[in-house]
């Protein structure tokens, strides 16, 4: 017999005068292949048209739909209810600004991150439309692709102790993003320049290394390896700068 599922969902619309945060329950019978994407849309279309949440690709590719499902951050679109108990608690991601109900503003947070960490290729070379591309080993391209796969879902940020107390901490995703540029031969930044961006408590040194984030990345990015790589590189750069007599905070 099919299970009766109960969804206990966080409700709060900050734009509605007088609205107060609360939990609201919805119940229906489970059916084959039910994902949280299907479930939340069913609730909105059939039970409560005011419910706010975000889906775009519904294929675990775009990173829009992260939320706390029974206390753990997950991409809702690829979460099958069959793997959950019959009582399902759904909360918005912490750290990010709440837009309403399950919808949070990851976009603004991530754009700030890109700008703060200058996450783009820094080079003095001018693009020559008539020249061949600069050669690169395929192995290196594959190495860059690994951290590049981050979909900016925010799952790693939501569970991070540091991010929950330090507003400006860039999180595992931020450190991973910077490490992607560090391993890219096209980016001409020196270690000292990277140090300026992430060699501080809001960056690589803010991470306390407990790896709460590691198993949570829905893209299975090897965050542990990426964080260690960035920290090592930054520690070495810091030492070098100290030897050179540069005062570092």
């Amino acid at each position, binding site marked *: 017999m099919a299970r009766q599922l109960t969804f206990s969902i966080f409700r709060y619309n900050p734009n509605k005068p007088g609205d107060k945060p609360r939990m609201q329950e919805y119940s229906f019978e489970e059916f084959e292949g039910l994902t949280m994407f299907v479930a939340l849309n069913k609730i909105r279309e059939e039970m409560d048209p005011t419910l706010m949440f975000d889906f775009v690709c519904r294929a675990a590719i775009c990173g829009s739909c992260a939320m706390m499902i029974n206390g753990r951050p997950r991409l809702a679109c690829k979460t099958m209810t069959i793997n959950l108990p019959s009582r399902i608690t759904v909360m918005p991601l912490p750290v990010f600004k709440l*837009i309403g109900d399950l919808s949070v503003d990851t*976009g603004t947070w991530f754009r700030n991150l890109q*700008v703060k960490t200058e996450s783009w290729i820094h080079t003095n070379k001018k693009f020559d439309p008539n020249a061949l591309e600069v050669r690169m080993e395929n192995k290196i391209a594959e190495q860059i692709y690994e951290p590049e796969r981050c979909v900016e879902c925010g799952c790693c940020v939501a569970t991070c102790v540091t991010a929950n107390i330090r507003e400006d901490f860039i999180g595992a995703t931020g450190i991973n993003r910077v490490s992607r540029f560090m391993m890219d031969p096209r980016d001409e930044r020196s270690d000292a320049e990277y140090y300026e961006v992430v060699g501080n408590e809001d960056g690589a040194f803010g991470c306390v290394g407990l790896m709460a984030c590691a198993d949570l990345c829905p893209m299975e990015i090897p965050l542990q390896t990426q964080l260690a790589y960035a920290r090592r590189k930054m520690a070495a750069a810091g030492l070098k700068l100290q030897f050179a007599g540069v005062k570092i905070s």
Partner: protein
Amino acid sequence: MSAKHTHISDVLVVGAGLAAERSAIEAAEQGLSVIILSLIPPRRSHSTAAQGGMQASLGNVAMGLGDNPRIHLEDTIKGSDWGCDQEVAKAFCDTVPIMIRQLDAWGVPWNRVTAGKKKYASGVETEDLKEKEGLITARDFGGVAKWRCCYTADGTGHTVMFVVDTVVCKMGITVHDRMEAISLIHDGETCLGVVARDLRTGDLNVYLAKSTVIGTGGAGRIYAASTNAVICEGTGGAICLNTGLVPLGNMEAVQFHPTGMPPVWILMTEGARGDGGYLLDKNMHRFMPDYEPKKKELASRDVVSRRMIQHIRAGYGIQSKYAPQHLWLDIRHLGRKWVWNNLREISNIAMNFNGLDPAKDLVPVLPTQHYTMGGIRTNKNGFAYGLKGLFAIGEAACWDLHGFNRLGGNSLAETVTAGFLVGKEVAKYTLGATQKFDYKLVEGFVKQEEERINNLISGRNGKENAYEIKEAMGQAMMDHVHIFRTGPALQEGVTKLQELYRRSLKIGLRSSGQGANPELAQALRMPGMIRMALCVAYGALMRTESSGSHSREDFPKRDDVNWLKRTLAYWKPGADLPTLDYEPVATPHMPPGDRGYGEATAGPKAAK
């Protein structure tokens, strides 16, 4: 309520996908002020979901040696079944190699050539040259003479989208995400900007600019089953159509991708077949070679999709919990390493959504709505017909690179190439234009939207349910305007859609509609979506020939004498059907001929 904020810029770009952002970069580079609007953060745009790759005739990989823009052009024209604009196609094929290299300089980690002998699962044996080592490589894709699909594993759209957005961040271009354009502001001659609804607060904003670029992507969600993201609702086309002045071109040209995965209809990339995957029927028979001995699984998409449906109709489909009828995609023979390295994204999808491991399991597939060839009709420089200062690019546009069938890998390539080429034209036009201010006119457009919102909230026009209407529209398109089409079925579809259209004008909300209310957002989009759907259905009904993906069983042949022309669909005020007009299609580079695959060379019926 009245407009909360008014924003003024030189250029307004509606959309933040690849096409939109690439054009914004080009305009900003000329020192113009640019504002980008998007439903969602730019990097979540549907472009990011593209898996397979991007066509460019670099000719580095062994199977691509000797490639050049001319061969790419011939493939594109053939693929389009001679429906494309050949001048646009030529400019595109000539430019796209430069685009790929520029993306490389910006940071895309393109996969590279490794020298040495290789044996592919498809049986192809090659040897990559030492002198090409480290240059950008390519894979095979449907309907091409040379391997030219450049890729980063199977996350090409993701890497290209992210890298283009890094340039937008670097240049400091303003992006207003969660901001939906809901109507175009114009004075009958010139486009002045848009009215937009803030999806964070529900407020209406006004954006005014010397030029407005629409890069809002495809309209796949007018079909109930589509590989497209849920936001691909075609609103950019709809707001242009609503002016009564701007036509949509060739909306009946809709691509169905051979390998959508039921029951969720997520795409299994063509790269899976490009890399050597097979299609199997219920007898585990590889049937495509029976129909298409030369191109097999890699004939163009319209052909493979038709063959699949034909084969299912002949009784060879599989019935399972995934779908009432489907076929299998088999990539097991590519080996675990290849499958989980080069086809990792789709392997994850098969695992996440159906618990299948493609290295050892078959994956259910069925042709699924995938791409909107039609769109806002523009000239070859990207100027929309009907209004000055209005441009369109990417999947939202009918620039007409694709005619009646788009080649796989040509769309991502189109987004950045059009972004670059049209972006330059936008900049040129804008530099010579003056801003028109007509506050009374603007106020009128805002009022109109306010009234629409108030009527939906109060239920003054009726109490129809937005979600029910949307579902019925999607189903009507599935039942009557799908891969194989006939006059009577299309007529029935048109009648149903007209009825739904009338009902969509009587939608009333069940909720309060306050703030960033999602029901209101859907309700506002519905009449426009159905108008788009009617342009598809009615255009298909009137086009009494078969061409590319438009396949009429009652008119199975292409008819160049009567139909070498492009449909232009207008929506006149108060109408409940589009008005159709036609324009000739020129063929300066390659006269109409036989594609060398598909109907004209139909082989014997399937063997047992």
